[in-house]
């Protein structure tokens, strides 16, 4: 109330100042609050734009051979766990050994250069070095077993993998995202899946 009354008086003073040829003084008084505000905003902005997620999601690196999930999982409908056989038995779902690829490819598409590469690997015993797409920090001990046994679809976290020519990271790998589903499975999972809430205590994932 008082302030609003006080305001015009200041204007008056400005004119007097301008007369005295010190215009900059009139505005100088805003500089201090302005700079404080600026600093504050920069902090917020930096914080917002450097969220790890913002540049991890959608990560789709080029792999040593252009393996197509769309073809194998989509068209050919090979079940995920045929290749990623660890999912139900181990923490890690696992990447199939080159040998496993050759189970079929010793017969099919043997002429393709990529398959020949596989064959040569088998011969030499050299390992295949895939680019890692879904990567959790080393202190996060994600365990596939409970999720698979609970009947959660691979697609829930890995996205519509059967449509992906090149695999890309679908889900945010941030803790809040995991917790979101653990706290409120209804939001993330199909309503009919009678899946209960997951554990929320630290050592469920961190040791």
């Amino acid at each position: 109330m008082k302030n609003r009354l006080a305001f015009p008086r200041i204007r008056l003073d400005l004119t007097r100042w301008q007369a005295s040829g010190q215009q900059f003084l009139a505005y100088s008084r805003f500089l201090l609050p302005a700079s404080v505000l600026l600093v504050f905003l920069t902090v917020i902005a930096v914080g917002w734009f450097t969220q790890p997620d913002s540049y991890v999601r959608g990560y789709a690196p080029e792999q040593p051979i252009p393996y197509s999930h769309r073809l194998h999982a989509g068209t050919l409908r090979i079940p995920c766990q045929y290749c990623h056989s660890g999912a139900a038995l181990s923490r890690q779902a696992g990447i199939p050994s080159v040998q496993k690829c050759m189970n079929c490819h010793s017969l099919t598409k043997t002429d393709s250069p990529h398959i020949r590469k596989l064959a040569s690997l088998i011969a030499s015993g050299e390992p295949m070095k895939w680019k890692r797409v879904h990567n959790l920090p080393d202190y996060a001990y994600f365990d596939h077993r409970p999720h698979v046994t609970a009947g959660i679809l691979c697609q829930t976290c890995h996205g519509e993998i059967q449509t992906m020519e090149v695999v890309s990271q679908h889900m945010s790998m941030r803790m809040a995202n995991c917790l979101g589903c653990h706290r409120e499975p209804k939001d993330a999972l199909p309503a009919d899946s009678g899946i209960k809430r997951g554990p929320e205590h630290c050592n469920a994932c961190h040791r």
Partner: protein
Amino acid sequence: MNSRTVSMPGQILPESLRTPPITAGPVSLAELDEQVLSPVERKPPKAWFFAFAFTSAVMLLGMGLIGYTIATGIGVWGNNIPVAWGFDIINFVFWVGIGHAGTLISAILLLFRARWRNAISRSAEALTIFAIMCATLFPLIHVGRPWLAFWLFPYPNQRGIWPNFRSPLMWDVFAVNTYFAVSLLFWYLGLVPDFASLRERTQSKIRKFFYAILSAGWRGSASHWHHYEKAYLVIAGLATGLVLSVHSVVSFDFAVSLVPGWHMTIFPPYFVAGAIFAGFAMVVIVLVVVRTTMRLENLITLYHLEVMNKIILTCACLMGYSYLMEAWTAWYSMNSYIHHTFRQYVAGTYWWAGWTTITCNIVIPQLLWVRRLRRSYPAMIFVAVAVTVGMWFERFVIIVSSLHQDFLPSAWHIYKPTLVDCGILLGTFGLFFTLVLLFARVLPVIASTEMKSVLPGMQPRREGGTHE
């Protein structure tokens, strides 16, 4: 507040006890401005440069060692298990304590209308801010992973979790930050009119520009003064609460834990008293130097110093009481652990620290009962230094002596500080006095505007104004 309850002692007290005049001899407004503001414009004397070089060198030493610590690990300090807190937290509590005098002087005494505080409030507040700067350093560098210390702040994040609001350390973060913010605001607000006067006085364009920014368009119009007084009172009100709250919260770091010797209900008042105690000692040390080197004897009079010494004496007695209470609790609680800890204080591994504390904080300040000593520089400096040292050692005793022998004898272990510890402590003193020296040169060490308000016969009428 109801002003009628406040009556100036001048009217009712016998001559001997009357408040002496605020200034030694008459001072005109012009004289005051000249005396207070001109040092800022003049080139500092050689002595200042020497002092500045020395203190900043010490400061750099400290900074270097902090860098070394962060690069190498807390292991370069003496901390261990069981004594997981050492110099780091001792220094933190120590510096936070130093800050308290400033707020007390500028806020509480303002509300109590103790007119003498106007001469010293500015520098006292400055000390507060510098002290908090030194203090806040330690919570940051004492953690194992300083680069993650920002996790202590509750900010929206992608982890879906918050800090633990049950933890006293969490409360500390808020307490100390609020304290710093409010003190800074309070200080700056007080400075605004002076900046304005400086702006008007100075000839150099650059200085004018910066003073213009800092004075935030202050022109001393009636409305400005009106808002100024209001804001000043409001912030003073806030700060008053903080004087009590901050060190109480700091004391919770200890009182809330179950470490024998920490787990005590007396801690909050005990810590606040100690803080004011240490703070005033520091103010006395600085003011004596400022007043003599900057020729401000007529504005910061011996009376000021004497009053502060009286407060120091009072606090000393409070501390004595607290120590006795600790002893009593140890005995009366029939708790063998507290028994043991208290015995450790006075007759354990660190008995010398315990006795240094008692001597410096209780015995030596008793000198101030003598009026002559209250008014003598050597005496008051001696006492002030003793109190500063004593209060540091008090924190040493509380933290180290309690921790190094707690519940399981098998886990007992001795604590030995390293040179890095000492270097960093020294460095914070360097930082502190560097800031003090800068302050003495670039800002008016006395709030000239506030001073004017209490110069004889120059009381502006403010609501609830003083009855004279």
